[in-house]
């Protein structure tokens, strides 16, 4: 079953000012993500990765082409997908527990029920002691874990992530990747993960899509084909890692007088 599908999707933005130039962020993107699959998307910054995610979440509509989630065309925000961004976007006036229940609260899930879900998730992400704390009392890694709990509390069919760990220090990042990978694996969740961390892409994904410079197109697909998708710490240490990274680097033109942030 295909959970997430981009069908020849193009997205252009109107010029900001009259007489200015419009921007075509992505062109003719065709992607299919199967049920339970974790697909990573990498590409130079500004190539339209976030744009693609906004289309999948229903925040924005494609200029041409169509986006499907669970077989239904995406015409606006819907409860099949949930979003996780680089910034945790926790609401500072809500306790951690109330932040995690935020999405369910909007969808009028009964209070006792949503609290139960949130507490379970927070326990699972080692935040059980911090339910009554406020976001500013937590470290960056803990806050991002709370954001992960908030995302999972929606029980989405597809998890959309936009560089979710890129603001974290290296160790915290590894711990969170571990938590995420395990959850995705155990709950058999489908995930679409944007990252600029090549190791992260290889450690977490079944498949890696490489995007070109703007207008972004999918120029290459790489099957990771390594065991331990639920255990990125182990996967990171595999011998195949080096050659996969080298392949991705050459696809992204890194180390040829050009770099990622082109």
């Amino acid at each position, binding site marked *: 079953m295909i959970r997430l599908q981009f069908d020849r999707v193009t997205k252009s933005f109107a010029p900001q000012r009259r007489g200015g130039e419009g921007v075509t962020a992505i062109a003719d993107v065709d992607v299919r993500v199967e049920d339970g699959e974790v697909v990573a998307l990498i590409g130079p910054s500004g190539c339209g990765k976030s744009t693609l995610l906004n289309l999948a979440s229903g925040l924005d509509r494609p200029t041409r082409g169509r986006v499907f989630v669970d077989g239904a065309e995406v015409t606006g*925000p819907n409860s099949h997908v*949930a979003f996780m*961004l680089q910034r945790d*976007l926790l609401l500072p006036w*809500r306790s951690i527990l109330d932040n995690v229940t935020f999405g369910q*609260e*909007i969808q009028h899930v009964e209070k006792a029920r949503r609290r139960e879900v949130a507490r379970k998730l927070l326990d699972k992400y080692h935040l059980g002691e911090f339910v009554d704390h406020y976001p500013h009392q937590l470290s960056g890694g803990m806050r991002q874990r709370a954001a992960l709990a908030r995302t999972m509390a929606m029980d989405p069919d597809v998890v959309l992530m936009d560089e979710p760990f890129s603001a974290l220090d290296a*160790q915290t990042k590894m711990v969170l990747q571990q938590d995420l990978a395990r959850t995705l694996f155990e709950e058999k969740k489908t995930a679409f993960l944007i990252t600029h961390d090549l190791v992260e892409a290889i450690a977490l994904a079944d498949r890696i899509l490489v995007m070109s410079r703007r207008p972004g197109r999918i120029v290459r697909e790489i099957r990771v084909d390594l065991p331990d998708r639920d255990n990125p710490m182990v996967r990171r240490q595999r011998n195949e890692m080096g050659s996969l990274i080298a392949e991705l680097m050459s696809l992204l033109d890194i180390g040829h007088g050009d770099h990622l942030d082109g």
Partner: protein
Amino acid sequence: MATISMGKAMNDATASAVPAAAAPPRAEPALVPPPPSFWRAYRVAIWSAVVLALFVLGWEWGLRALGVPKYFIPTLSEIGVEFLRAYERMDLVHHTVITTFEVLVGFALGALLGMAMGYVLGMSPTAEKVLSPYILALQIAPKVAFAPLFVLWFGFSVEAKMSVAILVAVLVVFFPIMVNVLGAVRAVDPAMINLARTFSATRWQIFWKIEFPASMPALFSGLRIGSTLAVIGVTVGELVGGINRGLGFLLLSGETQGAPLVFLAILVLTVIGIVAYCAVILAERSVLHYMPRRDFGKPNS
């Protein structure tokens, strides 16, 4: 906490490894700075006491020593005597109650109107752009100068004059609160709103669950300013209305009865303002309890 313990272990490792290699352990106590001297530890308290003593002594005896006459500036003890006289013979309590009532009503109405307008304009950028020149003009205009107009509107009964005082207060309180709320709603992180939208939040939910709570710090700094302006507005309204109740009446009486009464009325007005301000601060502390202390009053931090 895997993350934390991992970080901590590394810090401990480096912390203990470096000094051991660099210097013998005996040298370590020297690195701890000595406790501050008595003077350094209490200098703010000491200076405060000195300044307070100079202030009181200077006011009570210095003014007379310099030959400043009594009708110019009264001494503290003269104001004290005036307080007892006003309390017993001039119904000071009654006047204070009237003025306090005007301050409270003026502040509450001004705050509510300012909030309403701030949220409405904050949520409709087009309306705000169209109206901003008028808002700016009104913001710059000296609001208290409208007082004579209100006298004209309301007439000369006691209630009418109280209404004048209240209305002036409403007008001066309105603007800072509206401007603060408007700015705060405008400054809400669009990413937070998008997050709520991905959960299929309605416009109304976005307002109540994000924009409204996000505006609280700015609202409270507006309310703080408003609480002090309300006293100014009421005072001007009472003076212009020529009211025969309230502390403004005592101020006007002071024109014939002497400086101590003027100072006394100013003192009581100041106390009303301080109490109002402190009430706002207390409300702010309980509403904004989720914020780190140092961020108090800074909008959107």
